[in-house]
C-alpha cells in the first residue's frame, strides 16, 4: 500500500505535466456556475468598458482567448501588467499590441489568480452560449400572445362610437315621428309652442344647468392647474438641457454597455456620484476619436479639455436643494438600488433628462415601499432580530426622520 502511494507521488509531476502539455488551456477553466457568476461581476466592473466576448470593441473579442494565448500564465501576466509583457519582447504580446492599434491595456495588478480564472470561466461560458440575437427574436415572438392586443381595444372603441351615433340618429327620427304625430292632433297654441319650441344653441347656452356646468368645469380645471403649477415649482422633471459636449448615454451605457460606475466613480463610495473628469474619458478616447453619432467634433472637445487642462462646464441636470442631503453610496452600495430606479432608462437617453420628480414626496414614497437590503450586512443585525428576521421597510428603521436628510 505504502509503496503504491509513494509510487503514485513519484509519477504525479509527470501526470500533471502531461495534462498541461496535451490538453488545451481551456481545460483548466471551471464551468461552475458560482465561478461564472463571480467572473461576470468582475468582467462587468473591470473589462466591459473595453472588451466584449464575441465582438471587438477597444480591445479584441475575448472568446477563445484561452485557446489563442500561449499559456494561462501568460494571460495572467498580461492582465496584471501588459506593458511589462510587451516590453519583455514577447512575440504574441507584441503581435496583439500591433493588431490593436498600439493601445495599452490597463493593468489590473490586484487581481488574484482565482479572479482571473473566474473571468476566463465567464468568457468561456459566454462564448459557448448560442447567439443572443436568435434568442432575443424567439423571445419577442413568444411574448406576443399575452394580454389584450391594443388593436382590438381601438376596434371596440370605434364600434361603440358608431353605436352611439346610430342611437342619436334613431332618437332624432323618433322625435320627428312624434312631432308629426302630434301635429296631426288638435293642439292648443300653448301646446304647439312647446312642441315647436325653437331648440337653438342660444337657449342651451343660457340654460342655468349649462352655465353651472361650464363654470364648474372651468373653475375645476383652473384650480387643478394652479395646484399642479404650485407643486411643480422647482420640480424639473423632464429637464434635459443642452450640454457643452453632446455626450450620449445611449451610445456609452446602452450600445457599449459600459458600467455606470466605470465613469461615475463616486456612486459606490461617496455622496456625489461624480461627473467623470476628462482623464477618465481619455482611457478609451485616446484611441477612439470617431464618435458613433457626431463623428470627430464632440470627442475633439474632450481631448482639448484634457490637453489644455480646462475643465468642462457641464450643466447640472439633477439639482437637489442645498437643504437636502443625499448620499449615493447609501443607496447604490448599501441598499443596492439600481441607477435606473431614480435616473430612469439612462441607457436609452441620447440627452440626459431628469426622469424622476426628485421631490420630498417622491423620496418618502420610496422609503415607505422599499425593503431594507440587510443581506450580508452586519450593521442591520440588531434591527433584523427585533423584526423577527422579517423584511422591514426603510420607514420602519427611521427612514422618514427629518435629520436623515436635513441637517
Amino acid at each position: 500500500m505504502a509503496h503504491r502511494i509513494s509510487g503514485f507521488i513519484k509519477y504525479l509531476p509527470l501526470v500533471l505535466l502531461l495534462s498541461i502539455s496535451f490538453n488545451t488551456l481551456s481545460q483548466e477553466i471551471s464551468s461552475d456556475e458560482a465561478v461564472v457568476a463571480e467572473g461576470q461581476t468582475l468582467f462587468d466592473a473591470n473589462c466591459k468598458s473595453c472588451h466584449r466576448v464575441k465582438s471587438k470593441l477597444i480591445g479584441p473579442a475575448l472568446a477563445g482567448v484561452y485557446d489563442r494565448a500561449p499559456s494561462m500564465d501568460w494571460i495572467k501576466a498580461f492582465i496584471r501588467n501588459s506593458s511589462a509583457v510587451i516590453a519583455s519582447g514577447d512575440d504574441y504580446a507584441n503581435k496583439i499590441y500591433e493588431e490593436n492599434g498600439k493601445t495599452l491595456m490597463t493593468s489590473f495588478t490586484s487581481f488574484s489568480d482565482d479572479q482571473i480564472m473566474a473571468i476566463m470561466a465567464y468568457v468561456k461560458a459566454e462564448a459557448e452560449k448560442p447567439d443572443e440575437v436568435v434568442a432575443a427574436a424567439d423571445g419577442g415572438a413568444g411574448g406576443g400572445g399575452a394580454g389584450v392586443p391594443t388593436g382590438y381595444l381601438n376596434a371596440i372603441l370605434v364600434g361603440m362610437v358608431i353605436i352611439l351615433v346610430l342611437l342619436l340618429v334613431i332618437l332624432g327620427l323618433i322625435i320627428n315621428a312624434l312631432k308629426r304625430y302630434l301635429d296631426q292632433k288638435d293642439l292648443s297654441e300653448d301646446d304647439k309652442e312647446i312642441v315647436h319650441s325653437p331648440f337653438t344653441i342660444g337657449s342651451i347656452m343660457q340654460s342655468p344647468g349649462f352655465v353651472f356646468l361650464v363654470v364648474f368645469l372651468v373653475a375645476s380645471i383652473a384650480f387643478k392647474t394652479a395646484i399642479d403649477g404650485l407643486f411643480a415649482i422647482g420640480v424639473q422633471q423632464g429637464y434635459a438641457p443642452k450640454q457643452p459636449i453632446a455626450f450620449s448615454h445611449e451610445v456609452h451605457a446602452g450600445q457599449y454597455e459600459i458600467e455606470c460606475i466605470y465613469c461615475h466613480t463616486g456612486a459606490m463610495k461617496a455622496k456625489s456620484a461624480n461627473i467623470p473628469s476628462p482623464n477618465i474619458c481619455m482611457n478609451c478616447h485616446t484611441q477612439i476619436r470617431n464618435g458613433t453619432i457626431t463623428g470627430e467634433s464632440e470627442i475633439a472637445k474632450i481631448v482639448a479639455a484634457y490637453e489644455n487642462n480646462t475643465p468642462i462646464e457641464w450643466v447640472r441636470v439633477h439639482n437637489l436643494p442645498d437643504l437636502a442631503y443625499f448620499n449615493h453610496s447609501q443607496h447604490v452600495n448599501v441598499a443596492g438600488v439600481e441607477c435606473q430606479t431614480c435616473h430612469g432608462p439612462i441607457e436609452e437617453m441620447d440627452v440626459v433628462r431628469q426622469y424622476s420628480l426628485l421631490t420630498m414626496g417622491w423620496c418618502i414614497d420610496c422609503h415607505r415601499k422599499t425593503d431594507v437590503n440587510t443581506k450580508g450586512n452586519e450593521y442591520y443585525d440588531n434591527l433584523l432580530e427585533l423584526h423577527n428576521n422579517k423584511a422591514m421597510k426603510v420607514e420602519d428603521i427611521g427612514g422618514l426622520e427629518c435629520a436623515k436628510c436635513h441637517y
Partner: protein
Amino acid sequence: MSNTKKTYWKGLPQLKNDPAFVKHADKEFVDLGVEDDPRHSRRDFLKMMGFSVAAASLAACEAPIRKAIPYAHKPVDVDPSIPNYYASSYVNGGDYCSIVVKTREGRPIKIEGNSLSKVTNGGTSAQVEASVLSLYDNYRLRGPKKDADSVAWEDLDKEVIAKLSEISAAGGQIRIVSNTILSPSTKAVIEQFKAKYPTTEHVQYDQVSYYGMLKANEASYGTAFIPSYDFSKAKTIVSVGADFLGTWLSPIEFAKQYGSTREVSEEKREMSRHYQFESNLSLTGANADYRSMIRPSQVGLVVAQLYNSIAEKAGSATISGGIDKVAHLSKAADELWANRGNSLVVCGSNDRAVQVLVNGINEMLGNYGSTIMPSKPVHFRQGNDEAMASLISDIEGKRIGATIFYSCNPVYDHPMGDKLGAALKNVSLTISTAYAEDETASMSTYKAPEHHYLESWNDVEPKASSYSLSQPAITPIFKTRQAQESLMKWSGLEGDYFSFVKDNWNKWFYESQGGAMDPQSFWDKCLYDGVLEIGSADTPAYTFAGDVNAAAAAISSTYKANNTGYELVIFESYGVGNGSQANNPLLHELPDPITKAVWDHYVTISQKDAAALGVDNDAEGRTQLLSIAVGGKTIKLPALVQPGQMPGTIGMALGYGRTKVGIVAENLGVNAYGFVSMVNGSLNYNVTAGVTPTVTDEAFQLAQTQIHQTYMGRGNVIQESVLSEFKKDAGAGREYPKITKWEEKVAPGEVSLWKGHEYNNHHWAMSIDLNSCTGCGACIVACNVENNVALVGKQEVINRREMHWLRIDRYYSSDAEDISDYEQLEHASENPEVVFQPMLCQHCNNAPCETVCPVAATTHSTEGLNQMTYNRCIGTRYCANNCPYKVRRFNWFKYHDNQQFYQANPAMNTDLGRMVLNPDVTVRSRGVMEKCSFCVQRIQSGKLTAKRERRKVKDGEVVTACQASCTTGAIVFGDINDADSKISKLLQIERNPSRPNSVDKKIGNPRAYTVLEEIGVKPNIFYLTKIKNKEKSNA
C-alpha cells in the same frame, strides 16, 4: 352769558355759499386731487408692484442653470464629497500643536488634534481650531509688493539680491528678525543665508518673552534652556502667576497632563491639589483648588517665602526676604514637601531672579527628573530680549543696512515697536515676509508674503528629539511663496524648500532608523503620522548652581510687600492671544472663559476698586471708560468689574489695538505692548508704579454672553463636592430631587405622560466631566467651524442673539450665608471659586421643545436625537421659549451674503471666507431656529461607513466636534445601546431587561447627573460631578 346767536364764517366763500367750498366743507383734509404728477397714480404704483412681484415669482419658478464642473485631471486621492485628512503642524511663532487637517475638494475646512503626537497628544486650543479661518483671510497679501505696488517675484528677487550683495560687500550689517523658530530646516536655511551674506545675524524675539526663564536656567545650570514639564506626575501643583492651562509656555500639553491628574472615578479617588497665586483671575486660577490673590509687586516675595519654607524643611540655608501674609502659602509649602519628587512649582514671571528661586525650590523638592525634565528641553520660546533691544538701538543709530522681518510683526508686538517703526527709515533695505500687510510689513519696502501655514512645507522640533512635519493641505491661494524659499532664493540656493526639508530628514533621521525601510517609505510614514520621536541622547547631569542669595537680594530691591498704588498686569487673552490672529472673528466672538465678554478690549478691576473709583457694570454690560495714566501715556478702556481680581491691580490683555490687520479688528482697543518695559535685562509684563486710573463720564457697553454670575444656590445645576467627601462616598455632592405623588415621593424620571421612546439601533448620549473641563473654549470654536455657526458681531451679542450652539457657563460662588437670600446670592465673592459647565442641547428624551412646535419642525429621532429641521421651521420660537436650558438659537437675520455682517462674519460673506464652510451642513437662513445637532452629519457619516463595510459601528468612530477638540477628554460621546462602548462603561449603563432599548436605562455612575432632573425631560447629556481637592471646611 349771552343769548345772542352769532354766526361766524371762515371767509367770503362760505358766506357766499360757493359750490366749490360746499363740496369740501365737511372734510377735515381737503383732497385737491392729484396735481403734481397726473400720469402715475398710487394705484398705478400698486398695480406695477403687483405685476413685478408676480413676474418675479414666475421667473423664480424657473430654476437657475447650475453647473457641475469636474476636474480636468482628477487627482488620484481626491474624490469629490469624500474628505481627506492630512497630518500637519500648527506653528504660530513659538506656539505649536500637532494637528490633522480635514479637507474637502482640496480646501481645509476643519482642524483637529493629532493623537499620535507625544507633545500635544491630540489636544487643540481655540486659537488652533480657529486658525483654519485665517487661511481665508481677505486681508492677506495677494502677491509680492514693493512699497504700494505689486511686483513680480523675479523682479523682487533681482532687486533684493542686488541690494543684499551691495550691502554685504560694503560691510553693512544685515539682520533677520523673527519670532522663535521651531523648525530645524528653517534654521539651516538661515545658516545658508548667513554663509552667503556673512554680516547677517539672526535675532529672535517673542511677543510674550520667556527670556528671564532662559537666563535663570543658564545661571542655574549653565545652559539657557527651558525644560519640559510633566504635570501628570504632580500631586501638588503650585503656580505663581503661570497660566499654564491658558497661555503659559505649552498650554495644550499642560492641559492634557493636568486633566489626567484631575480625573476621578470610583476606582481612582485621588487627584492633584493645585494652588494658584495670581493677580488676574486666570483660566488656571479658576481651576485651582486654592487660589490666593497677590499683587505683581509681591510675586518675588511669594516665591522667596516658598523657598524659605521648603529650605527650612529640607534643612538648607534660607534666604532673606519673603512675605508671610499670603493665604495658603505655608499650607502649599507643607504639601509640596510632603509630595516632594511628585510636586511642581511654576512661575509666570519673566524675572530671572524669581526663576532662579523657582529652580531652587524644585531642586530642593527633587522634582527634576520626575515632573521637570531638563533632558528634554523645549524650544517654544527662544527669544532674546537683550538682542532685540540692541537691534532696535542699532537701527536707531543707523548701524544696520538691511532688515528682513521673517514673518514677524515687531512694530506692533514689541514694546519698543514705536521706536522701531520710526527708525525703520534709517535702514536702506527692509523686507517683510509676513502673509498680510501688517504694521511692520506696511513700513517695509519689500513685501515678500509667505504662505499660510496650511499651504506650507515645514518641519518642527518643539522639544529635543520630538519632531513633526507640516504639509500643505491646499494649493497656495495667492501668489505667495514660502519665506524659507525666499531666503533660499536670495542666498542663491537651488531647489525648493520641500526638497530641502525632505533631504534634511533623510540626512538627519533616516540613518538613525536603522534602515528598516527605504528612504521614501520612511518619509511617507513620517508625513502620514505627522510626528517622529527619536530616542533622546543621554544628557549631562544638571547640578543646580544658581546663586539664590544674589537672587534674593535682587528680589528684595524690586518687590515690595506693601505697595499701595495701582498696578497694571498685562496678559495674553485666550481669544486673540498675542494679536497675531487678530483678524480672526472666531476668536473675537469666543467669549472669554472668565469675563464672558466678546469683541472688546477692556481692563479688569476688582469689585473693591470699582466701588472706590465709582464705576459699576450693570446687567446689560454698561460701564464707563476708565482713563489710565501709565508712565507718560494715558489710554482709555472700558472697565469690567471682575470678581477674583486682586484689589489694587488692573488687568489688561495684549493682542488688541492693531492698526493694520484687516476689517475685523482694526483699531479695536489699545496696544498694551507699549506698557511692557525692560527690567533687569528681560521684559516685564507688569507695571507696579505710576498707574493712575480715573473714571471718565464716557459710557460704554460691553457685550457679555453671561450676565448672571452665580448659580444662586440651584444645587442641581452644578453638583459639586470635595475630595475628602468623594473618598467616602462616590456620590458626594449629588442631589436627588423627588416628585410628590399622591402617596409617595418618587424620582422625577418615574413619572411621565409618555411611554418613552424605543431606540432600537443606536442611542446616542454624551457625558461631560465637570472635573476635567478647564473651560478653555476650544469646543466652542470647533463647533462653530464644524457646523457653520454664524458669527453675529458685538451689537447682536448685546441683543442676546449670539448663535453659538455650545456655550460654557461660568459660575462663581457666592459669599452669602443664607441661601434663601437671593439678593445676596447674586453677588460673587471677592475671590470666588469657579465652575465651568459646557451647555448645549441636552437632546431630551421628553423634549419640551418638540411638543410645542406647531409645524413639527423639531422632532425626535429613533436614535435619541432631538432633530431640528430648518426648512420646516416657520420661526414661531415657541421651542426656544419652552427650552429649560436656553440652548436654542434663532436666526434674527440672514447672516450670510449680507453686507451688514461682513465685518463680523467674513466666512459667510466673502468668496474667500466661504471656502471654510462645511459642505455637509446647511447654512441657515433668516427666521429659523437652530441648535446643537449632536453633529448629526458625523453620526450619519460614521453609520454609512459601517454600512458600506457591512459591519456594526465601532465605538469611537463617531466623534462630535466638541469631543474631538477637548484636550482633557472631558467630553465623551457614544452609543449607550452598545454595552462595550466607552460611554456605556463610563456611565455604567444598565439596561432594563424587559425593555432593553427603551430610554429608561439605569445610570450606575454615582457621579453622573442630569441638569434640572426634577422637570423630568430626561436629557441624553450627563454631567459628572465637580470635585475640588480642598478641605471640607472651605467647601
